[in-house]
Each structure stands twice: as structure tokens, then as C-alpha cells.
């Protein structure tokens, strides 16, 4: 055990860090894009506050197409774009680009679903008080949907973590990459299993923290 840690401990720790870095940056950026997209989808829908069939249809179609392209294929397809953006097509930063592009539409859908769950009556009440659309989004919808948004973010983070590991297969960094390099190419099963265990742990920790926060912040539960 000690020998294993001495030999591979640093490698595992380093790539564990890289995985976390990729996931955090990708999730944050996916949300920076996904939240406005989700809001626009809700607003422009047929029974939304600002119905606009053209905008809705266009966004809806783009989101659907992006979501149906498998991550691995998307990653390869956009290599020229990635290279243009970060200067190379491998490594952690290069993996972040397809991760964000792939996750943003997914996040947009989650945000859309969460916002649609907000009671129409509460929105109507805010309108009857003279609230602007912006006030309704920021003060009513985002707040009332808070629990659902956090649950969504938890799922999104776990999904992005899974994608990031997949990216390891084609030159991304992180735990997925070393699992393949050492476990498959160099046939060092201990490293493979260690990275698998770390990935599983990571997903579970993210889930547990997310759900706990969501539950703690939900005021619909009495007591």
C-alpha cells in the first residue's frame, strides 16, 4: 500500500485535482450560458410571459440537437474550435471547451424545467403587484425554484464529471485519463481501480452535498 502510494500517490492526487478543476470550471461556465438560455426558453414559450414563437423554436431546436450529439463525438468534431480557443486540443483546458458546449444545453433544459415548476399563481400574484418581468425572474422564479435548481445543479455536476472522465480517453487530463493510460495502455490495474474509486467517491460526495443543501434551503417543508 505504502509502495503504491509512493509510486502513484502524487500522480493520483495531481489528476484528482485536475478532474475537480475541469468539473468546477465547466459547471460554472455551463451555468453562465445555461441559466440565461433556460430563462429565455421559459419566457418565450407559448404560455410564457413574453411569447415569441421564432426565438423559442430556434433555441429549442439548437438545444435538442446539441443534446443528442454524443459527448465523445462532439469533442472530436469541435477540435478546430477548441484549438482556436485554447491553442491546443489536449489537456485540461482543452477538455473544458467541449464540456461546456455539451453541458450548457443540458443545463438550459434543467433550468427551464425547474422554472416551469414554479406555481403559475405566484407569478400571476407578482404581476398583479406591478412587478416587471426582470423582477419576476430574479425575485420570484429563481427563488421559488431554488430547491429544484440546486438538485439540477447536482445532477449536472455529476454528469459533467462523467464526461470529463470520458474525455480522458482522447487526451483530456484528470482521473479518467490516468485510468486509461495506466490501467489500459500500461496495464497497471491498481491505478485504474484507484481512479475508479476516486471518481465514484467524487460523484457521491457531490450528490450528498447538493441534496443536503437543497433540502436545507427548502422552506416548503414544515418544521
Amino acid at each position: 500500500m505504502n509502495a503504491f502510494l509512493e509510486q502513484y500517490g502524487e500522480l493520483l492526487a495531481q489528476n484528482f485535482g485536475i478532474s475537480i478543476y475541469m468539473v468546477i470550471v465547466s459547471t460554472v461556465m455551463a451555468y453562465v450560458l445555461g441559466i440565461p438560455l433556460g430563462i429565455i426558453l421559459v419566457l418565450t414559450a407559448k404560455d410564457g410571459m413574453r411569447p415569441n414563437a421564432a426565438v423559442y423554436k430556434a433555441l429549442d431546436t439548437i438545444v435538442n440537437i446539441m443534446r443528442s450529439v454524443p459527448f465523445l463525438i462532439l469533442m472530436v468534431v469541435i477540435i478546430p474550435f477548441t484549438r482556436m480557443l485554447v491553442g491546443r486540443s489536449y489537456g485540461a483546458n482543452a477538455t473544458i471547451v467541449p464540456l461546456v458546449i455539451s453541458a450548457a444545453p443540458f443545463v438550459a433544459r434543467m433550468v427551464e424545467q425547474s422554472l416551469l415548476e414554479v406555481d403559475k399563481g405566484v407569478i400571476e400574484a407578482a404581476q398583479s403587484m406591478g412587478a416587471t418581468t426582470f423582477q419576476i425572474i430574479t425575485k420570484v422564479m429563481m427563488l421559488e425554484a431554488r430547491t429544484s435548481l440546486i438538485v439540477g445543479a447536482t445532477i449536472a455536476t455529476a454528469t459533467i464529471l462523467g464526461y470529463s472522465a470520458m474525455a480522458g480517453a482522447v487526451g483530456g487530463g484528470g482521473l479518467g485519463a490516468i485510468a486509461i493510460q495506466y490501467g489500459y495502455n500500461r496495464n497497471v490495474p491498481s491505478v485504474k481501480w484507484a481512479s475508479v474509486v476516486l471518481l465514484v467517491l467524487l460523484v457521491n460526495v457531490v450528490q450528498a452535498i447538493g441534496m443536503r443543501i437543497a433540502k436545507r434551503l427548502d422552506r416548503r417543508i414544515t418544521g
Partner: protein
Amino acid sequence: MTNTKQIMIETCGLTKTFEGGEKQVSALKDVNLQIHTGEIYGIIGMSGAGKSTLVRCLNFLERPTSGEVIIDGRKLSSLSDAQLRHERTEVSMIFQDFNLLMQRTVIDNVCFPMEITGVKKKDARQRAKALLEEVGLAEKASNYPAQLSGGQQQRVAIARALANNPKILLCDEATSALDPKTTKSILALLKEINATRGITIVIITHSMSVVEEICTHVAIIDEGNLAESGEVEEVFTRPKSAAAKRLVLPESSKAIDEMKSKRCVRIVFSENSSFEPVISNMILECKAPVNILLADTRDVNGTAKGQMVLQLPDDEEVADRMIRFLEERRLAVEELEGYV
């Protein structure tokens, strides 16, 4: 008295048509209403009659297909979006499902409309506290709505509705989700608010007892049409339209009898007539029996009103004499067609 009062809400030719695919649904047809300052105005109708659409037209949550809504002299259709939002801060609304923000505390719910209008946070909290005091929920300020009963939630909604000192309070089936006792207390609170603030209240309901309990005036909506409107006492005593009669005389009160006569009258007693045993005297004088098909008492604006439906004898002459007898005692007598 009413004539000199200012008109607060007026609708002219208000019409709303919903496009439902190929079908067009007329929710409101040419509704003309006048509601004066300080009135408690009931709008009553069966479900689906269009009353919810009507109340939503009064603050333009629903834009009418044609016709005008005039609030305190301002045509809503002529206002810009910003002006309309400002107008809405003066026309508050409470709802059947309360529609509180579930993720905010009670006091933050009451502060919410003031947040929208940009009242300073400190002033807003102070005012919210006073309002919660007024609705009797001061000690629940830091609770969340889910921890309150339905009646308490509606009280919070009322406090919230009063936050920006509105001229008008619209109540959309505000007591329909509440039990009778809670309904009574909410209605009493609304009455008190009307008395102390002089705020005009519009009450949408399907329940005649709500109208009787607190309204001064009533409009009856039937299939999108304004069937009848006027003072509650007048409409209750002498309903003219079929829709009004349906509401005053509940369907379930139809009784089976052995008298063959088809001639029925409805009489309404007010307090001054309840001392004389009118029916007994009438039977003694006309020497013929009548069949009491319905009798009940209702509280119309604090006055006890009794109503009775009598089936009169076959003999036309005796029946006529009975009607005269009742009219001489200044009771409102009305012949009912097809009651039995």
C-alpha cells in the same frame, strides 16, 4: 347617496374572447359595470360563468378583446407598460390559493410588493410589521407559509395586498378554499379593512352566502353576460333574472309534495315583519291550507332575512287573496313559475 359617490371602477362593453384552436370561446360579452368608491362589490356566478376573467380584466392581467376598463378615471388600454405596472400597485389582488412565496418568510412576503415599488427596506419592514399586527399574525412574522393554516395564509396575503396602500382590493374566490368558520373571519377582516381604509373591494365568488355576508352591491354573471346588478338587498328580495333566482333559490331546495297546484310564491321577511305570525293569520283568514316548500333565514349585511316558498291552493280566488294578504303586510311577494 350613491349618485354623489365617485366611480372607482367602470367597464364599458367589456368583451373577452379566447381563441381555442378553431373554436372561439366568449368568456365575457359586453359587460357594463360601475363600482363606486368604498363599495364592497360582489361578482357572483356559477363556475365557468366568466367571473374570474372579469376580475383579471380589471387589472389587465387579461387584456379584453374589446371594450374599456376605467380605473379611477384612467383608461387601462391607454396606459404604457410602465404606467400599467404603476396602476397595478394601486389595485391589489388576493387569490383562492393565496399564492404566497413559499420560500420567503411571512414578513418577507408582506415586504415583497414594497420591494417592487422600491420602498426602503427599513420602512418596508416596519410597515409590514404593522400590517401583520392588523391581520393578527404579528407573532408569525418569521415563519414560512407552509407552517401556517389556510386562513392564516390568506391573512398574510391580505397584509401583502395592503402593503402599497391600494385603492382597490380584488378578491378572486378568496374564501373558496377555506372552511365556513375561517371564511367568516376572513370576510370580517375584509369588512373591517373596507370600513377603516375606505378601500373599494371587489369580491368574486360562487357563493351567495359570501355576498350576503359582506357585499353592499352585487353583479350576477351568467355565461359571460351581466345578468343583473344592484344593491344586494334589492337583488336578494326581488331577483329579476333567471340567473339571480337560481342563486337565491338553491336548486336542491325543490321539494316533492302532494298538493297539485302549480302556483307558488316566494316571500321575503325582513326584521320588521317577523313579529306578526303572518302565515298562520293568512291561513286562518283565507281558511285554506298552504304548503311550505322552503323556509330559511339568511344574514344579509347584518339584517336577518327570512325567505319562504309557499304552494298556494288550487282555487285561483283563494290564492289571489292570499297574495293580497301578504302584500298588505308589505312583504315582498313574488310568483314563481315552474317551481314545482
